[in-house]
């Protein structure tokens, strides 16, 4: 590709740094009293050498400007010769709001320097007309999301659109990879690499545990596979050390629960003492509750707002604007505000509840204070005793600068299937070429040819052992060794269903109109009304009319459902009837877990913990035992009418739930008559009808056998057959792979009895085609995702022969928070049948005149 070099460059190269910046850039920097920062300079140099580079910098270091400088300089350098549509730089962000925000921030310097650069965004909100125009006459810089990139690449004109691409900027790369979204992005980058071979990739990321994972993601991989190719790395220093404190509340520290209600007065005091506070919680429900509690004591009428993913988008935009304008004093938020959008001058971050991971905490703390030279200030508020340990561990990790997120993953086969369809929509392809392209993407660099062919076969005919769909094939040979789409309609179908984000079905929450407010004893008229936001369909399914719950910062009464709207009215109760979802959405990270274990094992550090926690641990040592760091403690004791087994494994809620399911199956076989179990991030409690201490003492039950790793074999297989978790996982795979269609709003009405549910497909497939590629994809997801089997396996291996059993006369201090956890699971797969039976028996009892 021929291009005029910037004039100044060759002449002044020896002069060093200044040569990197053309005059008007240099003047612009000088006018602000700025100089080129070392990492900005490094990126300019790397880009000039056409080397892909990862930039790791903390928030506030001018990361975004550094990422765009090479493009702006290149675009200003002079005339460009065009082969295609002229798109120079593609910027990809994980959030459309971030893309819009970055565009806004970029336009100011571009106008001030009077650069001849056109900048546009493209998101799902961009009008159809503008999107069409962008494909023919794109701007110089296009700011967009991974999903939009996939759609752009599925058009026949993609080769023309991207022919002149020189630069790809991937913002918040750490948040984009390590998910199915990252898989899709990797595949799309591979295609961009085929179209515009010498485009340079620049990754921008917060501090991560292993930068090489991101560097490999940026760089095309090729033979020989033994060597992993890495992009260059530029790291800039960490700025001031954060100032993190653990809140020690004056109120007694709760044994269990996740609301931190006891600490609300102190949180409020902290808000009062700062300019703008961000209050992070782990779930939407917790956000609602904290917001509610704060307003209950908000005597100063401080402007405190709420921000989470369920709220209506316009509502969220209002909060963001108010934040940016400095009109708020505090915002209660979930992970929706985790990422790099700069909404205002935050001077305090409060993390309420468990931090769950060191990287996560550092990311959140980074939201405070965007001036590099001042320390970010953060307050950790544990909501129960175990969380004190976890907060302390996270604090230590953050101060030591330890990160704990693993960013490498094996690319998912369902995502690959979607991508193959998208590439076919762009035009005929040769399988050999596509295989080479796909395996240049790091997540797929170990993909076998056999699996690739299975996926292509799945896309073509469904990939079934019974090969009855050949005549309906979606891909057909062209005669010259290529495959083409059988019908243009299929490209349309692909575009309607593209993307890897499959949300649980959501319902709109509407306030019943004034006319609809029910008279006492009369049902509400379900019509009209303002939209408050969206809520999980599964949550609504459990509600009865009249139940109250917290939503959008107020307590509302459920009035009923109409199509996809859940109607509510304002309720005046003080306590909602349906309290909250238990726990956090993210499981405790492996790194924090091991810190918590060693903290527990070392009584010398207890004195640094809040006094109630230290006393709690001493009591545990006295009454039962404290496990050594490499041991796992199992207690058995009678409590209430039943017997309990509690294991302190610290492997996160998901792995514990899986362990609970498998353990209860085994206990059932051992005739211990398990009745139920409850799991949280720290441990698991199973209750049984049989006396476990006696069974173990008498040799009827061996703990070593009970916790043997082989439970991950047949037991797991048998349990998964009917598991709703597995069905949910399969549904996501089936939608991503294009086996079943997404539900589009407004189209549900077209006859629910005609849609085929993924559960039915799952059952049929398991039975008739157990080796099918989609079942394999779902299994791989379950193992690493909802079931966390990999982590459970590590745990079982690590603790083999290291189980310390402690029979007790009653509950131990350590067991109380686990026993008090809400959301217990009933035992055995037959449980659902039991529900129907109970419902039927209730009817019979009613019919024969007994009270139920």
């Amino acid at each position, binding site marked *: 590709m021929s291009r005029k070099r910037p004039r100044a460059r060759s002449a002044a190269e020896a002069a060093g740094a200044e040569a990197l910046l053309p005059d008007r850039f240099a003047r612009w920097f000088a006018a602000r009293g700025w100089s080129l920062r070392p990492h900005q300079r490094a990126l300019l140099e790397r880009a000039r050498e056409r080397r892909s580079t990862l930039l790791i910098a903390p928030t506030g270091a001018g990361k975004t400007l550094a990422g765009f400088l090479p493009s702006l300089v290149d675009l200003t350098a002079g005339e460009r010769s065009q082969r295609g549509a002229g798109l120079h730089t593609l910027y990809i962000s994980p959030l459309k709001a971030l893309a819009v925000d970055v565009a806004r921030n970029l336009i100011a310097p571009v106008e001030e320097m009077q650069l001849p650069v056109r900048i546009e965004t493209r998101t799902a909100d961009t009008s159809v007309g503008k999107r069409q125009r962008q494909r023919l006459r794109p701007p110089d810089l296009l700011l967009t999301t991974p999903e939009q990139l996939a759609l752009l690449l599925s058009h026949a004109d993609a080769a023309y659109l991207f022919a002149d691409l020189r630069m790809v900027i991937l913002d918040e790369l750490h948040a984009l990879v390590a998910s199915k979204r990252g898989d899709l992005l990797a595949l799309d980058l591979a295609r961009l690499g085929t179209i515009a071979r010498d485009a340079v990739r620049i990754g921008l990321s917060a501090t991560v545990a292993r930068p090489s994972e991101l560097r490999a993601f940026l760089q095309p991989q090729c033979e020989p596979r033994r060597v992993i190719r890495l992009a260059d790395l530029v790291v800039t220093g960490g700025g001031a050390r954060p100032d993190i404190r653990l809140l020690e509340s004056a109120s007694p520290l709760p044994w269990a629960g996740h609301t931190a209600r006891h600490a609300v007065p102190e949180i409020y005091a902290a808000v009062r003492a700062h300019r703008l506070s961000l209050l992070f919680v782990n779930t939407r429900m917790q956000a609602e509750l904290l917001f509610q509690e704060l307003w209950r004591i908000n005597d100063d009428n401080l402007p405190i707002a709420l921000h989470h993913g369920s709220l209506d988008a316009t509502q969220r935009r209002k909060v963001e604007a108010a934040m940016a304008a400095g009109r708020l004093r505090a915002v209660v938020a979930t992970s929706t505000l985790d990422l790099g959008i700069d909404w205002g001058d935050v001077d305090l971050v409060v993390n309420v509840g468990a931090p769950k991971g060191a990287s996560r905490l550092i990311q959140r703390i980074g939201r405070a204070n965007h001036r590099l030279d001042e320390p970010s200030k953060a307050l950790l508020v544990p909501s129960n005793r175990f969380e004190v340990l976890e907060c302390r561990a996270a604090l230590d990790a953050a101060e030591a600068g330890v990160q704990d997120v693993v960013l490498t993953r094996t690319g998912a086969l369902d995502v690959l299937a979607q991508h193959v369809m998208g590439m076919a929509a762009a035009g005929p392809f040769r399988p050999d070429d596509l295989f080479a392209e796909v395996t240049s993407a790091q997540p797929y660099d170990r993909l076998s040819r056999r699996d690739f062919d299975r996926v292509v076969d799945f896309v073509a005919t469904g990939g079934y052992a019974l090969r009855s769909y050949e005549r*309906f094939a979606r891909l057909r040979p062209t005669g010259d060794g290529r495959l083409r789409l059988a019908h243009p309609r299929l490209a349309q179908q692909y575009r309607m269903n593209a993307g890897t984000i499959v949300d649980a079905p959501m319902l709109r929450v509407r306030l019943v109109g004034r006319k609809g407010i029910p008279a006492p004893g009369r049902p509400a008229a379900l019509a009209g009304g303002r939209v408050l936001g969206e809520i999980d369909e599964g949550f609504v399914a459990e509600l009865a009319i009249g139940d109250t719950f917290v939503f959008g910062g107020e307590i509302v009464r459920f009035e009923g459902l109409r199509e996809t709207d859940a109607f509510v009215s304002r309720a005046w109760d003080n306590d909602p009837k349906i309290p909250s979802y238990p726990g956090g959405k993210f499981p405790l990270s492996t790194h924090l877990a091991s810190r918590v274990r060693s903290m527990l094992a070392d009584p010398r550090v207890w004195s640094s913990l809040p006094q109630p926690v230290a006393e709690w641990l001493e009591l545990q040592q006295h009454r039962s035992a404290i496990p050594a760091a490499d041991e796992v403690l199992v207690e058995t004791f009678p409590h209430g009418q039943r017997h309990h087994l509690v294991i302190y494994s610290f492997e996160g809620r998901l792995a514990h739930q899986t362990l609970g399911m498998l353990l209860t199956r085994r206990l059932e076989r051992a005739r211990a008559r398990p009745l139920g179990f409850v799991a949280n991030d720290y441990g698991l409690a199973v209750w049984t009808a049989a006396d476990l201490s006696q069974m173990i003492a008498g040799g009827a039950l061996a703990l070593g056998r009970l916790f043997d790793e082989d439970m991950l074999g047949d037991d797991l297989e048998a349990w998964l057959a009917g598991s709703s978790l597995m069905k949910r996982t399969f549904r996501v795979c089936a939608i991503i792979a294009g086996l079943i269609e997404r539900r589009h709003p407004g189209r549900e009405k077209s006859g629910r*009895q005609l849609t085929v549910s993924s559960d039915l497909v799952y059952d049929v497939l398991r039975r008739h085609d157990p080796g099918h590629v989609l079942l394999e994809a779902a299994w791989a997801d379950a193992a690493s995702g909802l079931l966390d089997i990999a982590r459970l396996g590590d745990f079982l291996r690590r603790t083999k022969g290291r189980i310390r059993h402690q029979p007790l006369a009653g509950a131990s201090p350590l067991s109380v928070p686990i026993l008090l956890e809400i959301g217990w699971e009933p035992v055995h797969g037959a449980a659902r049948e039991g529900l129907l039976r*109970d*419902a039927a028996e209730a*009817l019979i009892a*009613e019919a024969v005149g007994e009270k139920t």
Partner: protein
Amino acid sequence: MLGLRPERLALDDFKTQPISICGKPFVADQSGALYWPPERTLIVADLHLEKGSAHASRGLMLPPYDTRQTLLRLAQVIDRLEADTVIALGDSLHDTKAAERISAEDLEILRIIQQDRRWVWVTGNHDPVIGDCFGGERTEEIALAGIALRHEPRLGRITHEIAGHLHPAARISIYGTSLRRPCFLGNGLRLILPAFGAFTGGLNVLDDAFLPLFDDDGLAVWMLGEEGLYPIAARLLRRD
């Protein structure tokens, strides 16, 4: 309230449930089939054979095993109840082109099931025409014990009718868990059968589509479980 006497229910056996229609004692089976013992007649609705391949022909590659699964389930219940007559209550085929797509093996299975018994295809909106290759007799409506058997239920509060077409399903919520299953829906005077096909979805019995068919009270629902058929109180029913 239910058109049945509760003491006749044996709690330890939920496999079948007596359902009376205008005083005639039918037996509902957990598979979703209805049985008339005096004439050893089995009634099933909405088999939707070749639904998977119908989707495949439009570009959605659903598994091609639904016809096989439906026929094998049907064979099991015919064997278990030793039916002499089978009445398929319409929408037995997902569309009129099912004959072109069904595999020779599945047709052979159907032929074996049909041997030595009377087989009646009641036509439905999905299968107004049923090809000769499917054997059996064809009719739009048939009477059994003075009860009309047709695919689509007649609008209005009529009696003496057994129909399919609507794929009734019920959702209940109990102990904080919600459960959605196909069901029989009736009021002692008429009955709607659940869909029998492997890939058939369900329409919630609280949907407006059921309003023109039944009065508000006296509605009874029997939900299909894995191991049995369960009568469910109307107050437990939930919308989707």
